C-alpha cells in the first residue's frame, strides 16, 4: 500500500483513490461540494484545495484540488498550509457573494453542507458590497421545492439527475455567473429518483416539498433507522417524527443495499402514516357504540378466538413478527397467505429455487457491479426502482471499468471517463412486456408476451449448454438471433446477473432465469440472480410456506363457523372481488388488524388499529433474502395503535391465560420463529436483544441539539414529562445515551461535530463510499452451497398466440399508483398516471377503437371499464390493466379475458 505524508505525518493509504477521498477516509476534515462518493470528481467547485510538495525540500508546494489528484507513493501534501486554507476560505467567500443569507428561513438550515463547509473554512466576514444576482424559481411538481437563489453551482444536481439516474428534464442553462439549474419550463420532474436532489444538493436549492408542509429542523426530529415498506427491495431509510407526526424520510446509507439513493415512492410514500384514513380506534361493529377501548376489545376477541375455530390470513406487507404471531395464535395449520394462488405459487417456486443454494441471490450492490445484465419479464423501473437504478449503474460502470483498465485514467475521474467512454455501455438485455425507460441504456430491448420471454430465456439457456437444456421448438429467426446475441454476451461476462420476478404471472420466466443463472455459474464466473416480489415482506411470507388464499377459502367454506383474523391485508388487492366477497360471507367472525381503512376493514366485525412501520418495530425479508429490522420512530399518543404482533400476542396471552414463555419483544418473536420454522435460521441475529446497551447506554433517537423537550407540552403541563420508555429495542426516546457511532443497523441519524448535514455519513464509513465503520451482522436467508447435482428445467412453454376474441390480462405496475400505502400520500397521489387499459395498435385497430375510447374487460361476471391507451410496441393478444390502483380491485391476472368496446 502506498504511503503518503499529510502535514509531514505518514499514512498508509489505498492506491487508486484521490487525495480528497483519502483524506476524508483518514478522518480529516476537508471541505468539498462537487465531488460525491457515488459520482466521482469533476474539479468544478475548487473547494478541496490542498498543497502538494515535490519532495521534502520543497517548501513552496503547488496548490491542487485534492479531488483531482491521485494517491502516489511518497506524495507529500498539506491540508493545514496557510495558502491552501486561505484559498478554501476564499472559495466560500466567492460562493457567498450571491448566496442569500436566509438560513433562518431556509429548509436546509441545520442540515446544510454549505453551512458546515462555511464554518469549516472559517469564512465569517462579507466584503462583497454589491447586489446579489437573483433568479426566478420554478414549479417542479409536488415533491421538490426550488429556490435557485441559493445555488452555489456545484453541478451535482445535473450530474445526479442526468448522468447517474438517466433523467433528461433537468438541465443547466445560461453561463458565467448566471447559470441556472432547472427545467426548460415549469413542471413536475419526471425522474422517479428526483427526490435524491434534496440530499445531493449541498444547500437549499432543492428541498423536500412534503416536509415543507409540516416543517421541522433536523435537530428537532426524533429519528429511527427504518426500512422502506413500498417494494420488495428493502432500502434503508431514516424516518423522522415531531409532535406525533411522521415528517420525512431520508436515505440511510447501506453499501450493500441502496447506497446513497432512494426512489421517490420510498422517500415520499410516508405520508399515509399521517393520513386521515388511518384506523385509530378498535371497533366492534356488532355493538351499538362501535368504538371501544383496549380492554373491551381484548375481552371480546378472547371470546371469538375461543368459541369457534380460528384461521389466520397473513400479509406480504406485515413484519415477520406479526405474521409469525398470527401463525402462533391460530396454529400452523390454520395460517394462510393472503395472496392469490398464482402469486403464492410463483413466490414459492422462487423460494424453492433460491433455497437449493445452486444459484446466488444477489444484493443491489452486486447488481451495480454486474458487467452483463439480463432482465426477463420484470418491469423493474416500476416494481423495483432502485434496482433499475443499480442496473443503470452496472451498464454505465462496465464501460468505465474497461476505460480504467485500458488507459491510465483514474476510476474517480468522472469527467475524463465520461469523455473517454462516450456512449459505450455495458450489456443490458431488457426483455419485458411493455417498454421501459431502462430501454434507453439497453443493448437489447424486446417487448414480448410472457411465454415468449420464457421461451427466449430457455433458448438462451440452451445456447449456454445444449446438453442441460433442450432446444426451444419453433423459435422465429429473430428470436434465435436475439437469444444468440444475449447468450454470447452472458458467456463473455465475469459477473452476469439475471433478473426476473412475479409480475408476468409466468412460471416459465422464473424457471428460465434460474436455468441461465445456474448455467452461468462457474468457478471463474460468479453469476447472480435476483427475483423481484410484489411487497416489502413477500419473501418473508412466502418462506413461511403457508397455503395460499384458495386453501383458506376451502377451510372457511368447509367449517362455515370460522373466526377469521386478517392481518394487515386488503383481500381485494390480491383476490378478484367476487371471490373476496364470497370468502367474507363465509366467515362467522371477521377480525381485521390494519393501518389504513380499506374494503376489507370496512367489512370487519372487529377492527383493530395496527401500528404503521413508523410506530412499530419489525423485521422484513427482502427480495434477496436479506433480513432487515426497522425500529419504531415514535410511540403513537393513541395507545390503541400497536404493532400487530403486540395485539396478537396479547390475544394469545388472554386465550392461553398464561404469560410465561410467550414472546414479548421482537427479538423474542424472531427467536421463536427460528425454532418453529428452521428455514428462518439466523433471522434473530440481525436484531439485538431489546436489552442491548453499549457501555450500559441505550442509543438516543434524539440528537444532542434536540430542542423544546421542556416546552413542547407546556401548554398542557409545565412539568417535563418522563421520557417515553421503549422496552422493545435498544433505542431510546431521549437525547441522552451512547454518544459514539452505533452499530450500522441501529443508526438513527448521521451527525458528527462540524458535519450537521447528511454528508456526515463520510464519518460513519471506514472508507468513503465503502462499508459503514460499525457494520453489524447482515443475514441473507439464502446461501449458495456446493452442489453435486444440478437440476435444470427443460419444459419451455409453448409459443404464445393471440386467441380469437380473447386477450391475456396482465397487470401494469405504476411506480406512483400501484402502491397500496403510498397512494395515501398526497404528493404521490398527484403524480399517479391516469388509469387506463393498454392494447397493442394491431388489436386496437381490429377492435376499431382509438386512444381514449372506453373499453370493458369481461371475465365471467366481472366487468371493468377504463379508457384505452394504445401502445405500439406491445405484443398483440395482450391487455394490460392498472395494478393496485385505488378503487380498482384485483383482476384475474394471467387469465384470458374478453373485451367489450
Amino acid at each position, binding site marked *: 500500500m502506498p504511503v503518503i505524508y499529510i502535514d509531514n505525518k505518514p499514512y498508509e493509504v489505498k492506491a487508486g483513490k484521490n487525495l480528497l477521498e483519502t483524506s476524508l477516509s483518514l478522518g480529516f476534515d476537508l471541505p468539498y461540494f462537487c465531488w460525491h462518493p457515488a459520482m466521482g470528481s*469533476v*474539479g*468544478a*467547485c*475548487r*473547494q478541496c*484545495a490542498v498543497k502538494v510538495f515535490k519532495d521534502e525540500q520543497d517548501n513552496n508546494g*503547488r*496548490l*491542487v484540488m485534492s479531488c*483531482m489528484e491521485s494517491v502516489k507513493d511518497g506524495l507529500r501534501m498539506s491540508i493545514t498550509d496557510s495558502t491552501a486554507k*486561505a*484559498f478554501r476560505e*476564499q*472559495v466560500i467567500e*466567492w*460562493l457567498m*457573494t*450571491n448566496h442569500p443569507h436566509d438560513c433562518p428561513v431556509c429548509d436546509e438550515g441545520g442540515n446544510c453542507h454549505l453551512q458546515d463547509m462555511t464554518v469549516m473554512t472559517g469564512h465569517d466576514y462579507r*466584503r*462583497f458590497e*454589491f447586489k446579489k444576482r437573483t433568479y426566478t424559481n420554478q414549479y417542479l411538481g409536488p415533491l421538490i421545492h426550488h429556490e435557485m437563489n441559493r445555488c*452555489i*453551482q456545484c*453541478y451535482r444536481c445535473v450530474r445526479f439527475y442526468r448522468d447517474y439516474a438517466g433523467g433528461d428534464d433537468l438541465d*443547466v442553462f*445560461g*453561463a*458565467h*455567473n*448566471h*447559470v441556472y439549474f432547472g427545467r426548460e419550463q415549469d413542471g413536475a420532474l419526471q425522474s422517479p429518483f428526483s427526490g435524491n436532489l434534496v440530499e445531493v444538493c449541498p444547500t437549499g436549492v432543492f428541498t423536500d416539498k412534503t416536509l415543507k408542509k409540516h416543517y421541522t429542523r433536523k435537530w428537532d426530529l426524533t429519528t429511527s433507522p427504518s426500512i422502506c415498506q413500498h417494494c420488495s427491495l428493502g432500502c434503508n431509510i431514516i424516518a423522522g417524527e415531531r409532535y406525533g407526526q411522521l415528517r420525512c424520510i431520508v436515505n440511510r446509507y447501506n453499501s450493500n443495499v441502496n447506497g446513497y439513493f432512494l426512489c421517490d415512492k420510498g422517500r415520499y410514500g410516508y405520508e399515509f402514516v399521517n393520513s386521515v384514513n388511518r384506523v385509530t380506534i378498535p371497533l366492534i361493529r356488532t355493538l351499538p357504540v362501535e368504538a371501544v377501548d383496549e380492554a373491551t376489545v381484548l375481552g371480546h376477541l378472547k371470546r371469538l378466538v375461543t368459541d369457534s375455530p380460528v384461521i389466520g390470513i397473513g400479509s406480504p406487507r406485515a413484519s415477520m413478527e406479526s405474521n409469525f404471531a398470527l401463525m402462533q395464535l391460530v396454529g400452523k395449520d390454520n395460517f394462510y397467505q393472503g395472496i392469490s394462488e398464482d402469486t403464492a405459487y410463483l413466490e414459492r417456486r422462487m423460494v424453492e429455487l433460491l433455497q437449493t443454494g445452486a444459484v446466488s441471490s444477489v444484493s443491489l450492490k452486486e447488481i451495480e457491479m454486474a458487467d452483463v445484465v439480463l432482465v426477463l419479464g420484470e418491469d423493474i423501473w416500476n416494481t423495483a426502482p432502485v434496482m433499475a437504478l443499480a442496473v443503470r449503474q452496472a451498464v454505465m460502470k462496465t464501460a468505465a471499468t474497461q476505460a480504467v483498465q485500458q*488507459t*491510465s*485514467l483514474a476510476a474517480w*475521474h468522472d*469527467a*475524463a471517463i465520461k*469523455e*473517454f*467512454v*462516450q456512449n459505450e455501455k455495458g450489456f443490458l438485455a431488457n426483455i419485458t412486456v411493455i417498454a421501459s425507460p431502462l430501454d434507453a441504456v439497453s443493448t437489447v430491448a424486446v417487448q414480448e408476451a410472457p411465454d415468449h420471454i420464457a421461451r427466449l430465456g430457455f433458448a438462451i439457456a440452451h445456447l449456454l449448454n445444449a446438453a442441460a437444456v433442450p432446444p426451444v421448438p419453433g423459435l422465429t429467426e429473430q428470436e434465435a438471433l436475439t437469444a444468440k446475441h444475449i447468450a454470447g454476451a452472458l458467456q463473455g461476462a465475469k459477473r452476469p446477473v439475471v433478473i426476473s420476478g412475479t409480475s408476468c404471472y409466468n412460471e416459465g420466466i422464473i424457471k428460465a432465469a434460474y436455468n441461465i443463472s445456474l448455467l452461468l455459474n462457474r468457478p471463474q464466473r460468479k453469476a447472480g440472480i435476483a427475483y423481484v416480489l410484489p411487497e416489502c415482506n413477500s419473501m418473508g411470507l412466502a418462506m413461511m410456506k403457508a397455503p395460499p388464499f384458495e386453501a383458506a377459502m376451502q377451510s372457511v367454506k368447509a367449517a362455515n363457523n370460522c373466526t377469521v383474523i386478517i392481518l394487515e391485508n386488503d383481500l381485494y388487492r390480491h383476490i378478484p372481488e367476487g371471490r373476496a366477497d364470497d370468502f367474507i360471507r363465509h366467515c362467522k367472525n371477521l377480525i381485521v388488524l390494519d393501518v389504513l381503512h380499506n374494503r376489507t376493514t370496512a367489512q370487519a366485525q372487529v377492527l383493530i388499529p395496527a401500528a404503521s412501520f413508523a410506530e412499530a418495530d419489525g423485521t422484513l425479508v427482502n427480495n434477496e433474502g436479506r433480513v432487515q429490522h426497522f425500529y419504531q420512530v415514535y410511540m403513537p399518543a393513541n395507545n390503541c395503535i400497536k404493532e400487530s404482533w403486540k395485539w396478537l400476542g396479547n390475544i394469545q396471552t388472554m386465550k392461553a391465560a398464561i404469560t410465561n414463555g410467550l414472546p414479548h419483544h421482537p427479538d423474542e418473536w424472531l427467536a421463536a420463529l427460528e425454532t418453529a420454522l428452521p428455514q428462518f435460521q439466523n433471522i434473530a441475529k440481525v436484531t439485538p436483544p431489546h436489552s442491548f446497551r453499549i457501555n450500559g447506554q441505550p442509543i438516543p433517537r434524539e440528537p444532542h441539539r434536540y430542542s423544546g423537550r421542556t416546552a413542547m407540552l407546556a401548554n398542557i403541563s409545565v412539568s417535563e414529562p418522563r421520557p417515553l420508555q421503549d422496552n422493545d429495542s435498544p433505542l431510546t426516546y431521549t437525547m441522552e445515551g451512547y454518544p459514539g457511532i452505533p452499530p450500522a443497523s441501529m443508526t438513527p441519524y448521521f451527525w458528527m461535530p462540524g458535519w450537521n448535514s447528511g454528508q456526515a455519513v463520510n464519518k460513519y464509513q471506514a472508507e468513503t463510499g465503502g462499508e459503514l465503520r460499525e457494520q453489524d451482522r447482515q443475514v441473507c436467508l439464502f446461501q449458495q452451497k456446493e452442489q453435486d447435482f444440478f437440476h435444470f428445467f427443460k419444459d419451455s412453454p409453448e409459443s404464445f398466440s393471440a386467441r380469437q376474441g380473447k386477450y391475456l390480462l396482465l397487470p401494469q405496475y405504476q411506480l406512483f399508483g400501484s402502491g397500496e400505502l403510498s397512494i395515501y400520500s398526497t404528493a404521490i397521489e398527484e403524480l399517479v398516471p391516469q388509469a387506463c387499459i393498454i392494447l397493442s395498435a394491431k388489436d386496437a385497430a381490429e377492435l376499431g377503437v382509438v386512444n381514449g375510447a372506453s373499453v370493458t374487460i369481461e371475465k365471467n361476471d366481472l366487468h371493468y371499464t377504463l379508457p384505452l391507451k394504445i401502445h405500439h410496441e406491445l405484443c398483440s393478444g395482450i391487455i394490460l390493466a392498472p395494478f393496485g390502483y385505488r378503487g380498482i380491485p384485483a383482476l384475474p391476472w394471467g387469465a384470458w379475458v374478453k373485451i367489450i368496446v
Partner: protein
Amino acid sequence: MERPLTQNIHAGRQPLTLKEYTATGGYTALQQVLKNMTPGEVQQLVQESRLKGRGGAGFNTGMKWSFVPMGEDAPSPKYLIANADEMEPGTFKDRLLLEGNPHQLIEGMIIAAYAIQANISYVFLRWAYKKAAQALEQSIREAYHAGWLGKNIMNAGFSLDMYLHTGAGRYMCGEETALLNALEGKRATPRAKPPFPQVSGLFGKPTIVNNVETLCCIPHIVNKGAAWFQNLSYSEDGGTKIYGVSGKVNNPGAWELPMGVTMRELVEEHAGGMKKGYRLKGVLPGGASTDFLTEQHLDIKMDFKSVTAAGSRLGTGTMVVMDDATCPVGFVHNLQHFFAQESCGWCTPCREGLPWVEKILWAIEEGRGKEEDIELLQMHTQLLGPGNTFCALAPGAMEPLQSAIKYYREDFDRHIREKKCSY
C-alpha cells in the same frame, strides 16, 4: 523579407480559388508528403522547424503531435481540428488567413492530419466570421472535388474528411478542450487535463487542436525545409509571425514579419506611430489576456521567450495599444467585463471572482471606490492564478489587471482619492 503565409493575400482581393492556389505552388507540399514522407518524418520535420503554436500558448507543434498514439493499435478515428474560433480581443490575424487564402489552411490541415494519421478533421470557426465561412465552404468543396480530401487521397492510402463547424459565439470555445465539448454538442466548459486531447480528445479519441496560423505554416515548412523556416526568424522560435496592432496608432493592421521583431518596430514603423496628440501609455502585447508592457519595453523582441522575460506573454502576437487619453481603470474594467461575461460558469473562482472584480473596477471608475478595493483586486490577481482555476481564462483575465495595478497604481489611487474619473 519572405512572407510565406501572406504573400498571396492582398487587401480587397477575393480569396484564392483552388486553381489560383495551385498556381502559386499550392498542394505541392501535400503531394510531397503523401508520396515521399512517413507520418513520423512529417512530425520530425515540424519539430525540427521549431514551429511553436500560434494560438497563444507557444508549445512546440511537432512535439504536441508526437503525443498522439500511432500505429495499428492506436484508437480510431483520430481527429485534427483547426481552432479558428478567434475571439481574443484585439486579435484578427487568423481572419486574414481564413479570408485571404483558405486553401493554405486546408493543405496544412491535410498534412497535419496525415502526420498524426487522423481521418476526420474540423475547422471550428468563430460564428461572426461569415466571409471566412463562405470561403472555407467553397474551398473545402473544391478540395474534395480535386481529390485533396475524401477517400484514398492521391492513391496514397490516406483518407481525410473535413467539416466546417461554426461556433455559437463563446470566447470559451477558443480553449481547446471547451472547443471539443462544444463540437460534441455539449456545453462549452473546459475539460480537466490530463488526460490531454492528444490521448482522449474529441469523442474520447486522440485529437490535435492547432491554431489556424500554426497550420498555415506547415505546407511551407514541407516545401522549403526546417532550416529555411528557422532562418525566417530573428529569434530561436522558427518562422514568421503575423503581428497586429490596434489602438490609437496611425496605421492599425496586421503584418507578417520575422518572428522576433521589436515592439518599437511594430508600433513606430508598421503601425505608423501614435496618432497626433496621443502618447503611448502601455500595450497588451498579445491580446486582452496578457500583461501590460510600457514604453520602457518597446525594444524587446516579440518572441515567446523575450516577452515572457519582460513580464508578459507573446500570446497571439496582436497588440492592443493604450494611449494616454484612455483611463486605465476604465480600460481594464472593459476587459474584465468581457472576461466575466465569457466565463463558462464551471469553476467557482472564475464564475464568482471575475464579476466581483468587474464590479469593484466599475465602482472605482464611477468614484465609489475605497482604499481597500485595491487590496481586494490584488487578492483576486493572486488567487485567480493558474492551477487555482479550472482553465486559463481567469488567470488570463488577471494578467492585464495585475500589471495595470503595477504600472498605473497612481491612476487607481487618484480615482479613489478624488472620487471620480478624471479622464
